[in-house]
């Protein structure tokens, strides 16, 4: 069984929120950080508590810390040394591995997220603007009271119209795939893969390889904790629409091209099951909208191109050890909606996403390094992920087609990385232990 009472809600639940706010914090002293954290504790919900009160609740809060943040809170050097190397180094030092070069280089990241002073993140998700404003006022006041705690920057996130389902600024329906974890009380929908061992996402439990090993110390800190990669990805909506218009003469052709880049129609209908025509009813049906594979259903990519976003990020039955590379995804869109008929307005908009996993190097970094940015992935030779890959205008996107394939050369970058960091997401007991300055708890 997994300890649903001790794991921060966000790992296993998605909040029914429309808006949110992320605060990036720095602590001048351990005492300041602990005072702030002690005050935050009562706001945090476990997986179980969240499930029980979700109907009444109007907001949901999560906290995480960088490695520098754990040190700032007073965690001792011996303990700090037991954390995995990629987390100790932080996302900025891993830029080349992740493909964060050129326009996406951490040098360009704003809001203090790329510097050593970034210590903590608070994620607020709320039902509406009013609730967010109330929370923010209270949090501002807490920060003002906690001398030595500084807000480096904040990011407001929120759903964009139309509000009938979650989607990004390009118009793709999101939050369709969900993985299911043994003991979480959830069953995978058809096609979502086998039930996964909890240790793939939560520290202290067996993973797909066996009992937990090499956990951060002391045990109280590791148990029921997790790691979280933050990615702020700007979406160049004008450029994306221009690209569709340039390569598709009719609205149908443009929709099909958008679908080919993703592997799903913008409605969410998977191309493997709806290769020729969009099918919104299929998209909305969780029993069917994920029920496909690639090896037999679409080996050559006639439905989903071999380099499409979802075929890279989860190659399903065409990759080895798939269960060792799964990721939990959370997040939201930020920035203003750009109406369909409006020209690019130069404002920043995008996706502020989180990838949660037990091993950043084996799950998140593997996905970035191999699936997203390896030009040779699937023997493609000169391609990267068309949505999130590092694109410099010299790469292709191949759409297999009979009798001859279509190759689009010089794919533009539709996204740019504007920020990111690695966080440790402690369990609730671990958070109390941190707030108490590492004292043993009763």
């Amino acid at each position, binding site marked *: 069984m997994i300890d649903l009472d001790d794991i921060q809600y966000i790992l296993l639940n998605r909040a029914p929120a429309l808006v949110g706010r992320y605060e990036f914090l720095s602590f001048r002293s351990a005492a300041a950080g602990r005072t702030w954290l002690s005050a935050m504790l009562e706001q945090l919900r476990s997986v179980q508590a969240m499930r029980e009160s979700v109907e009444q609740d109007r907001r949901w809060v999560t906290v995480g810390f960088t490695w520098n943040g754990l040190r700032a809170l007073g965690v001792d050097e011996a303990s700090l040394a037991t954390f995995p190397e*990629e987390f100790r180094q932080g996302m900025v030092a891993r830029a080349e591995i992740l493909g964060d070069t050129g326009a996406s280089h951490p040098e360009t990241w704003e809001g203090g997220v790329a510097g050593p002073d970034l210590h903590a993140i608070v994620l607020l998700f709320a039902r509406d603007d009013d609730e967010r404003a109330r929370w923010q006022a209270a949090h501002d006041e807490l920060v003002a009271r906690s001398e030595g705690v500084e807000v480096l920057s904040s990011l407001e996130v929120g759903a964009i119209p139309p509000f009938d389902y979650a989607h990004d600024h390009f118009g793709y329906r999101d939050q369709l795939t969900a993985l299911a974890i043994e003991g979480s009380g959830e069953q995978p929908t058809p096609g979502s893969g086998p039930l996964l061992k909890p240790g793939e996402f939560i520290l202290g439990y067996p993973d797909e390889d066996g009992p937990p090993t090499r956990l951060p110390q002391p045990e109280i800190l590791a148990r029921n904790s997790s790691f979280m990669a933050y990615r702020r990805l700007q979406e160049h909506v004008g450029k994306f629409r221009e690209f569709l218009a340039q390569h598709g003469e009719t609205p149908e052709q443009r929709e099909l091209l958008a679908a080919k880049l993703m592997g799903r129609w913008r409605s969410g209908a998977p191309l493997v099951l709806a290769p020729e025509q969009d099918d919104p009813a299929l998209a909305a049906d969780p029993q069917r909208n994920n029920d496909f594979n690639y090896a037999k259903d679409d080996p050559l990519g006639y439905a989903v191109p071999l380099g499409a976003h979802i075929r890279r990020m989860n190659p399903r039955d065409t990759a*080895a*050890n798939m269960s060792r590379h799964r990721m939990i995804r959370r997040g939201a869109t930020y920035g203003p909606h750009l109406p369909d008929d409006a020209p690019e307005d130069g404002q920043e908009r995008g996706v502020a996403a989180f990838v949660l996993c037990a091993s950043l190097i*084996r799950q998140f970094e*593997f996905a970035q*390094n*191999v699936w997203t940015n390896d030009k040779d992935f699937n*023997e493609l030779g000169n391609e990267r992920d068309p949505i999130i890959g590092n694109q410099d205008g010299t790469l292709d996107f191949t759409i297999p087609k009979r009798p001859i394939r279509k190759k689009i050369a010089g794919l533009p970058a539709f996204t740019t990385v504007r920020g990111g960091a690695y966080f440790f997401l402690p369990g609730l007991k671990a958070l109390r232990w941190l707030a108490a300055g590492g004292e043993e708890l009763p």
Partner: protein
Amino acid sequence: MTDKDKRPEWSVPAAMAIPEGGYFEDKVDVGRYGPTFPKTPACYGFTIIAKLIPGREEHVREHGRLLAQTVTDAPDSLEVLKLHYLRWVLFDIKSETYFMYQGIFDTDFDKYTEDAVALFSKYGIDTVFENLEGFPADWKTNPASFVQFVRDHQCPSFLEYGEYPYVSADEIKKALRVKAALSEMLDQMQ
């Protein structure tokens, strides 16, 4: 433009001299587990040389037979590794026995480290490595320690040559499939 420039890369034999240490200083790619060795006209590869724990020679030979059987039974066992060739050699220097493991493959090893480690334990390749001096005891749960052992015992080439440079095993297999299909078609036309 000479004729040579117009020819596809695979048709022009190529050689690459590699600096001591195995890397080109000005363009070292960084992988998840550290710097990665460059791709050469002979693709990616490594040559690992390590001392055998005394008395283990027969163990290792037995594993050679076992692995051969594994591949016979399940020919796609090693597919993940994107291999061209593996060479396993035992040799003596003075009275000590050494093991050499040379692999030529299409993807830089760093990319699929965890998958390779999982595969090694699945097919018992690990047991061979466990007969080598200095092989990390925690290698199954610590891919970084495995990588470190490989790095410590890697002897980088100072020259690599490819008669058909940079061609991947998949491309070769694809070409052979086309050739087979073509000759079948020609047979049917007669």
